[in-house]
């Protein structure tokens, strides 16, 4: 290709003007294919098409569905489903009705679940990164070990946990009873314990990402900063707070947002641990949406809850952007 390069160094020898095309003087320069301009579009097209097909189109279909009374009577010919207007949304917000109350309960459980999972995952990931920042014998092994949950297929990991947490023959109860920490085996997958178990299993899956991100971020903090802080008399905690956390602020900000978005819509863990009918204490919003849509076949209501969840997460992301921009301006 004889396309002029954009990488010509300023001030250096100017590139020769493009020679006329070899197939005759009659051809115009404008008719040559400017690959350098097309290439970005060609590269991005598959991703764009897939994004449209996998995310945007189903999302728009879901929004449309939320305004329909879509039940088993219309599921095979959903274009004929009666228009429900905002009825599905009103039902979700109607706290005097059982549907609205159950949505609120589900929302509150999800918020508590998200706060616990994100907070503890970040804390464990961050602590592990700080401890493993300095070089010592066995550091590589520990780093690899901490990344194992992230490398394992999610389903395999959760199924293993479901075996560990069984009451009668699970390893957790075996250990607890043999160490005489508890007198009799506990039901880890029933009642409120189910919430604790789900939270622990999700933290186990999430913390390696927090560890990976913060560890990568700490690699770029210059050692001189710590030396300067130490010379100024900063204690270890002050170094951690002002140097480490200060320098990691942009990374932590993105990390916490991602963890929040992922955790809020977590579905794999409760579904694999409990099947399609998890205990009430694990009635997360995603589970509630699945229940409404695929078990009660009330697809319109399920879609309305999905849209509300999407809007809530957009608000969270919007607030994050606002705070993040403000923080950047202040720093500048």
């Amino acid at each position, binding site marked *: 290709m004889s396309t002029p390069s954009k990488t010509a160094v300023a001030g250096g020898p100017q590139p020769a003007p493009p020679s006329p095309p070899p197939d005759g003087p009659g051809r115009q320069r404008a008719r040559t294919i400017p690959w350098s301009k097309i290439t970005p579009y060609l590269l991005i097209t598959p991703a*764009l098409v897939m994004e449209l097909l996998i995310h945007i189109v189903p999302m728009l279909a879901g929004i449309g569905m939320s305004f329909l009374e879509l039940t088993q009577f219309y599921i095979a*010919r959903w274009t004929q489903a009666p228009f429900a207007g905002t009825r599905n949304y009103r039902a979700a917000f109607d706290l005097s009705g059982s549907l609205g109350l159950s949505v609120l309960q589900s929302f509150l459980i999800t918020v508590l679940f998200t706060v616990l999972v994100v907070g503890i995952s970040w804390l464990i990931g961050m602590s592990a990164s700080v401890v493993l920042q300095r070089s010592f014998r066995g550091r590589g092994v520990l780093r690899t070990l901490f990344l194992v949950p992230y490398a394992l297929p999610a389903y395999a990991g959760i199924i293993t946990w479901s075996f560990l947490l069984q009451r009668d023959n699970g390893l957790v109860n075996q250990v607890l009873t043999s160490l005489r920490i508890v007198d009799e085996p506990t039901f880890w997958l029933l009642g409120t314990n189910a919430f604790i178990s789900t939270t622990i299993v999700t933290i186990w899956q999430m913390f390696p990402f927090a560890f990976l991100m913060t560890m990568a971020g700490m690699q770029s903090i210059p050692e001189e900063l710590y030396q300067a802080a130490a010379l100024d008399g900063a204690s270890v905690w002050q170094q951690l707070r002002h140097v480490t956390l200060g320098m990691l602020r942009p990374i932590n900000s993105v990390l916490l947002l991602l963890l929040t978005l992922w955790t809020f819509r977590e579905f794999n863990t409760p579904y694999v641990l409990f099947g399609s009918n998890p205990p009430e204490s694990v009635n997360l919003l995603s589970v509630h949406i699945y229940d409404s849509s695929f078990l009660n076949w009330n697809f319109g209501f399920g879609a309305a809850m999905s849209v509300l969840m999407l809007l809530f997460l957009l608000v969270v992301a919007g607030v994050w952007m606002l705070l993040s921009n403000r923080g950047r301006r202040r720093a500048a």
Partner: protein
Amino acid sequence: MRTRRIVSAAVAALLVGALSACGGGGQSGGDSRTITYWASVQGASPDDDRKILEPLMQEFEQQTGISVDLEVVPWTDLTNNTLAAAVSGIGPDVINMGNTNAATFDATGAFLPFDDAAFTAVGGKDKFVEAPLAAADVNGGPPTSLPLYSQVYALYYNKKMFADAGLQPPTTWQEMVAAAQRLTDPAADRYGFTLPGATVNVGMHLSYILGAQNGGSPFDASGRPDFTNDGMVAGVKQYVDLMAADGVVSRGDAQFSEGQLSAARFAGGHAAMMFGQNATRTTLVANGMDPSQWGIVPIPAPAPLPAGGRQIGSFAAGTNIAVFGNTDNRDGALKFVEFMTNPKQQATLSEAYGSLPVVKGVPAPTFGDPAAAQAWQQILADRTIPLQPNPNIQAYQTNVGGAVVELFARAATQGQVNTEDVRAALEQAQDKMPASS
């Protein structure tokens, strides 16, 4: 300009290609020589089912020249897969469905109605046994699925444990509980009874049977959910009390999310009794139990019967076979339904799965025990009622079954479950029900 045109053309080509791949109805049996069949798991495992069904598929191909693309789908996936097929129009030609779901799937309009012509093609309406056919008649019009395997519930008991304790098989609920209490010895990890407490569909089945014994039914005359009537509440409490009040069920059973788990406890000698359908036989045998070691009697009812209560021990359970409405091979699909429901195949399938034949003139398999075979037939004839037809039966199963599962969880973790707890759980289940259309 040219760049823009090229990019536009590329985007359009990709979109058209992708969208056409999404559409295009195509069943895999798009030609007249092939059909696709989604079979439910009836045996101990999908592999077992393939071993049983594949020779039949080959026989069908030899007879008709139509090859069958067989897929054995676990029950946990079958409903969702069927739903996806109904929505997308892309699915198999012939499919199995639980007969409890028949009314809900019927409401989708995605399945071929068995009108007179279709009935003639599969051998006529009269060839079917009345009870399972009545259970398939869910909308008053032509049914959209036909019985394939007929099942009823019974009480399985361990003959040796009963003989050692000098007990007779129970004929009333009270006798059953008393026998279970005598046979319970937690220190030896032996209980009088075992049940799959975390299994949603079994929870619904037993709530229906025991609810009917107490004079309850889940839907009123106009088809509206009525889960909190006294009969339903009493029926569910009767079931949950086996763990919560009678103390004859291990609390660990509250985590059993599959019937096979309690069947394994029974087969392993850890429980003296359990409720099970005909097909439970295959699981017990797979777990090393010899059929001579167990006996069956009808699930007993309380004595005297509560007001309005019925002396029943089962509902007409089973698996149906249906043809997708948009099959490209309607004739081949109907031929296949005829084949699967003809006397010869029914005899083979009943023998393999322990189910009851759905066509007349085929004796129930005796497995060398004519008394047990007669007991099953007697339950079907005298103690079985059909499930109340309702298009929201799928939601009913999910919500009431889910409520029973929650109540067992409460019994396991907190001990007591009182009548108000049961009523509140059923009320919550009722609130989740979608409006009928």
